[in-house]
């Protein structure tokens, strides 16, 4: 049998190559795990990259405290089954320590606040490389991102002065205090991730599949009415719909989409025919045209 290199396999080969470069070039790497499909895909790739040895780095979850409960249950089960090490750091702790201030109002979210907790954790553990599941097709500032993206002592992204990346060569040389954000699935699209999940038969949290949920409508988007953290005006009427989530970020800024897709193959079909981009349901990107670029400069993923 020949190991072939068709489309999804060539993306997988590239990602595995990047995972191995991280393990070889850095002393203390960590895989940032959110419980979402992209980071679940990363875990799968890491397991495959080092088999039959164990994944040589831990996972870290920056918990906003606003996660879908299904995601947390899933996270804990996954690390247990695979025998991985998991570090959790809470945004709530950063709030309690007075390092960040909770936003208020109808668009309040903890998405921005994550950055402080993440940067503190990087410093606490002296991580020199953080592997993340960001993809260039997600958003136009991310389209400019390198695979090895250097952050300074303050975790900041200098978008105008990025290291050129040529051929397959990844330069991970840094000074003490700097760290590198690594994006092994940079070149994957949302459909690629789903096709991979289907091909590998990877388990994902149930909220990615169509389910009945109490929701309300605002700004043409569908919000969960089942969780307290999503702000809802009294006059915003609650209805029940068949929905699923395309991303599983902070509940307060992640909207649902109407869907009948109850299996992975149905989800793949649905995305293939979709006319709305994945981040179209993320209110955090809609704040301004440069919302993502600004957050990234400050150290956001």
């Amino acid at each position, binding site marked *: *049998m*020949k*190991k*072939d*290199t*068709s*489309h999804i*396999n*060539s*993306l*997988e*080969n*590239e990602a*595995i*190559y990047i995972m*191995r*470069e991280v*393990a*070889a070039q850095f002393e203390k790497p960590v895989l940032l795990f959110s419980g979402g499909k992209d980071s679940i895909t990363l875990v799968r790739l890491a*397991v*495959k*990259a*080092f*088999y*039959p*040895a164990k994944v040589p780095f831990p996972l870290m979850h920056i918990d906003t405290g606003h996660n879908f409960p299904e995601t947390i249950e899933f996270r804990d089960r996954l690390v247990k089954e695979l025998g991985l090490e998991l570090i959790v750091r809470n945004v709530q702790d950063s709030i309690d320590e007075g390092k960040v201030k909770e936003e208020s109002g109808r668009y309040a979210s903890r998405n921005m606040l994550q950055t402080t907790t993440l940067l503190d954790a990087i410093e606490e553990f002296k991580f020199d490389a953080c592997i993340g599941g960001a993809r*260039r*097709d997600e*958003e*136009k*500032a*991310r*389209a*400019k991102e390198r695979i090895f993206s250097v952050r300074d002592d303050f975790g900041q992204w200098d*978008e*105008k002065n*990025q*290291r*050129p*990346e*040529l*051929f*397959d*060569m990844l*330069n991970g*040389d840094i*000074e003490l205090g700097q760290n590198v954000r690594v994006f092994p699935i*940079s*070149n994957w*699209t949302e*459909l*690629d991730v789903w096709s991979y999940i289907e091909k590998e038969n990877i388990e994902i949290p149930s909220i990615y599949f169509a389910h009945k949920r109490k929701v309300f409508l605002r700004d043409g988007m569908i919000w969960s009415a089942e969780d307290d953290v999503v702000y809802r005006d009294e006059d915003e009427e609650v209805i029940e719909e068949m929905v699923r989530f395309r991303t599983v970020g902070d509940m307060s800024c992640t909207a649902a989409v109407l869907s009948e897709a109850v299996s992975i193959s149905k989800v793949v079909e649905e995305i293939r025919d*979709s*006319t*709305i*981009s994945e981040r*179209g349901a993320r209110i955090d990107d809609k704040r301004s*045209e*440069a919302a993502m*670029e600004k957050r990234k400069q400050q150290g956001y993923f």
Partner: protein
Amino acid sequence: MEVLKIATAGSVDDGKSTLIGRILYDTKSLTTDKLEAIEKTSKQRGYDYLDFSLATDGLVAEREQGITIDVAHIYFSTKKKSYIIADTPGHVEYTRNMVTGASTSQASIILIDARKGVIEQTNRHFFINNLLRIKDVVVAINKMDLVDYSEEVYNKIKADFSELMSKRDYQDQNITFIPVSALKGDNVVNKSEAMSWYKGAALLEHLEQLDKADIFNAGTPRFPVQYVVRPKTEEFHDYRGYAGKVYGGDLSVGDDIIVLPSKTRSKIKDIYFYDEKYETASRRSSVTITLENDINVSRGDMIVKEGDIPVIDKQFTANVCWMDSNQLTAGGKYVIQHGVNKVLAKVDRINHKINPDYSGIDKEATGLNINDIASVTFKLNKPIFYDQFKNHRTNGSFIIIDTQSNNTVGAGFIQ
């Protein structure tokens, strides 16, 4: 279905971003929300057409100045292929970005404004594509709508460009001329009705037809060892796997191999991809291989087939594209990263600077400035195992790292 990576090159206002936007639009790759965002911003700025460049120019500074500063990656797919376009800026001061974008691409599109024809920048775009040995190049003659879709104009540009082609170093490059109007959509995804005199394929049609032989340069297998897998578990007690990516050609179980630099001989015992065994590892697959003999192999070593070994040397000459604002001068010390191998290097001499527009060389050059291209000889503190770039794109290229800033400050192609 392979992934096809394409680099684009064009001068300011040649309509490069518009071309990409047109491809996305006509292949229905732009989602409603992205299209709405483009409509909204185009309207805000008072344009009476959709500005597709807004889909690709991702940074604030780029949108403000209306130019592309950094390489952006754009993704779309058809039923036949998945495409990644590296949209690179075309200005002189962004030569390094063009080199970067072209380095990961197998095909490229050079844009020419039909009203302006072949200009000095076209020479440079072609030079870089040829230097990097991109196998398939499309010369898209754009804005044909503004020259009344004239066959004469097209033929004149084609003739001028052919003159340029006679000067190229890499003669086997496939070059295809296509007259297009990105703004109106002629010959981009759909064949143009206004240019019935053009009998060739539309741009996307041409790209769809490319197969592996058209986009990959043949080579010999090279396996740089990236990582040694030692599980140290009961089940895999004596397992020593060498993880890496296969470049240039295939490797198979039973192949007689030599490990460099020790020149130890062995045979490939098993090829693993995750928990499955394979007979053959194709080029560009990330596998783990085990050897018949228990020998010492570490990261940076290279496994090659017997009778087919690369050059092993502590000195080489290469064409270098300099990418840093600090000059490169003779005597300068750097780290050279060749594949996954890092060695200390000293600039022995700058042989000559090459004008990247086919206007000749400068033998008197003493220092390289940002965006300069030159022939440079390096001496290394230990040998590397290389091929000439013309024979092996991966094993014949390297990057230069500044020992102070750790930045990637240059790229080289071994002669």
